[in-house]
């Protein structure tokens, strides 16, 4: 399996007054194309920080990250934004939808940034909402959707541009078990159907149970990296 995410000795430290707090301590990691991997560990272990530096939302203080073979360390903010737009979808713990846009507009928003024609945008956004089981709720704004529905919109939005990678940070943390189960199945199905690489930071054992690769972090280091089932086809 070719690697789509590569971390080479990645470090991230934060300055807190006169103290320097290391969040990532020399992470070496390669995630294969089409993988469905989970990243677990206690709070403060560096899961969210690792997702942030991989997605270009934050910059490592040491090491290098390659996305699809391209190093991102030297990219400026605009180049990182373009990289995220074209290659990386995000699903956050809190649903992070744009509150003044409807479900359809939230999904369409990212397609507008891509510059797709209106007809294609709408068709793709409707198809994605259908895919995540939200047909009929397209015109509802986030405030009128349940937590599970909002998280599905977030998944639809992340997948609408057909990214190569989806980075999800505790996507089931705010969902009840029913919604969490459906979301896991949805992500698994989309991974199997489209070959999108999923890297999911989670505490949720139900999510971990579906992963084909499981990584554990403690104190900014990878302490476990195991393949729990056969690799997905590239």
């Amino acid at each position, binding site marked *: 399996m070719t690697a789509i995410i590569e971390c080479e000795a990645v470090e991230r430290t934060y300055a807190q007054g006169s103290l320097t707090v290391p969040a990532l301590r020399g992470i070496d990691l390669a995630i294969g194309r089409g993988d469905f991997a989970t990243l677990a560990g206690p709070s403060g272990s560096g899961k969210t920080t690792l997702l942030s530096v991989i997605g270009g*939302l934050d910059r490592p203080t040491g090491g290098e990250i390659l996305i699809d073979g391209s190093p991102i360390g030297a990219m400026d*903010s*605009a180049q990182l*934004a*373009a990289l*995220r737009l074209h290659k990386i979808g995000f699903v956050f713990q809190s649903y992070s939808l744009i509150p*003044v*846009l409807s479900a359809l507009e939230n999904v369409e928003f990212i397609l507008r*940034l891509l510059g797709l024609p209106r007809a294609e945008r709408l068709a793709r956004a409707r198809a994605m909402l259908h895919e995540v089981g939200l047909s009929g709720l397209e015109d509802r704004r986030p405030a009128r959707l349940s937590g599970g529905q909002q998280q599905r919109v977030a998944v639809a939005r992340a997948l609408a541009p057909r990214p190569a990678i989806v980075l999800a940070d505790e996507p089931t943390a705010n969902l009840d078990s029913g919604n969490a189960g459906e979301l896991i199945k949805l992500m698994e199905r989309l991974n199997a159907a489209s070959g999108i690489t999923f890297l999911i930071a989670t505490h949720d054992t139900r999510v971990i149970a579906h992963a084909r690769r499981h990584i554990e972090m403690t104190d900014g280091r990878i302490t476990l990296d195991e393949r729990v089932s056969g690799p997905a086809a590239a």
Partner: protein
Amino acid sequence: MKELLPLLLPLGWRNLWRNPRRTLITLVVVAVGTWSVLIFAALFNALTTGSRDTTLRFLTGHGQLHAAGYLDDPSVSHSMAPPDAALRRALLAPAIAAWTERVRVPAVVQSEYRTRSATLVGVAPQSERALSDLPKEVIEGRYLSGVSDPGVVMGRDLAVRLKTRIGKRVILMAQAADGHLAEVGLTIVGLYAAGKPAEDEFVFTGLDTARSMLGLGARSSEISFAVRDEAALTAVVAELRRAAPTLDVEPWMELAPLVYTIETFGRYYTAVWLLIMFILMAIGLVNTQLMAVFERQREFGLLQALGMRPRHIVLQVVLESALLVGTGVLAGAVLAVAALAPFRRGLDLGFLAPGAEIMGESRILHPALTAVEGLAYGAIIWLLAVAAALWPALSAAQARPAAAMSR
């Protein structure tokens, strides 16, 4: 970037109404600020132009022609011949709204009790009406009826000083063209009110009456003219100088330098005040925008995480400010137009008349703004607000998405 406008404009408008109270307060502040800027500018315009027009619409006009030497020695010896064909053509040009000939010489006016020095002005009442407000300022009796009217119109204050009144005869004495002292007895037919200095100085009679008294034939002392558009005054003066190279042709700025200085000072004063108001508004708007952006750091982080470029974040914040302030400016402009509408015919300062007179102001102020001025002031406020939004916009765009989203 413009392909994103159809996305960012409605998004910006909806974002404004996420916090309706703050948006409404900002709208009210901008609208009231715009209203006060426009009203202030209109009133100052009225004060400045009112003071100027009081002088220009009395005798000066937008410019005058005299025989060489008249301005240094305004006596009968510096009279000029009637306008020749070239000058007449130039005076009849479309840029000139009206013109008139006058005789204007130093004189002595004597009543049965007292004698005062004055300036005798012989006027052509018909053409004078297009140039001067004096005919409308007659408060007792009547204005002159024609060039041969043998009556006298004098200032109310001069009549008091001479202890005379309408219907009484006064003796006018002045040096005639042949050098002898001409004198003629004329009846007072009207009294005008125009502020004490003018009321004391000028005594009017018919143009031909004055010419006949002074033995001037068809000659006169000055030609006063008014232009249709003051922007064309320089060109008009140049054309008149070409048409009458032997005459002095001067614009009102040269004829009434004090009035010009006061008007210029008034305009700078207004500009400084408006600048202060603009800056205060901008400071208020920067503060509001900073608050709004600070509250939405997480959202801007999310937008960047989704792939929105930093310059698009800047555009969005600036657009929201432009929409908000644009709406406020529009509302303020409508309110200002509504507030000024009742005073289209003028704001009567009759209750302040003595003070206005001392200030050289007209009793009636005409607070008005041209569309260009209104648009310019509105645009300045709008552009200042957009510029004021740049700082918070750049701060929103420069935040790292991860840091912004963790707030």
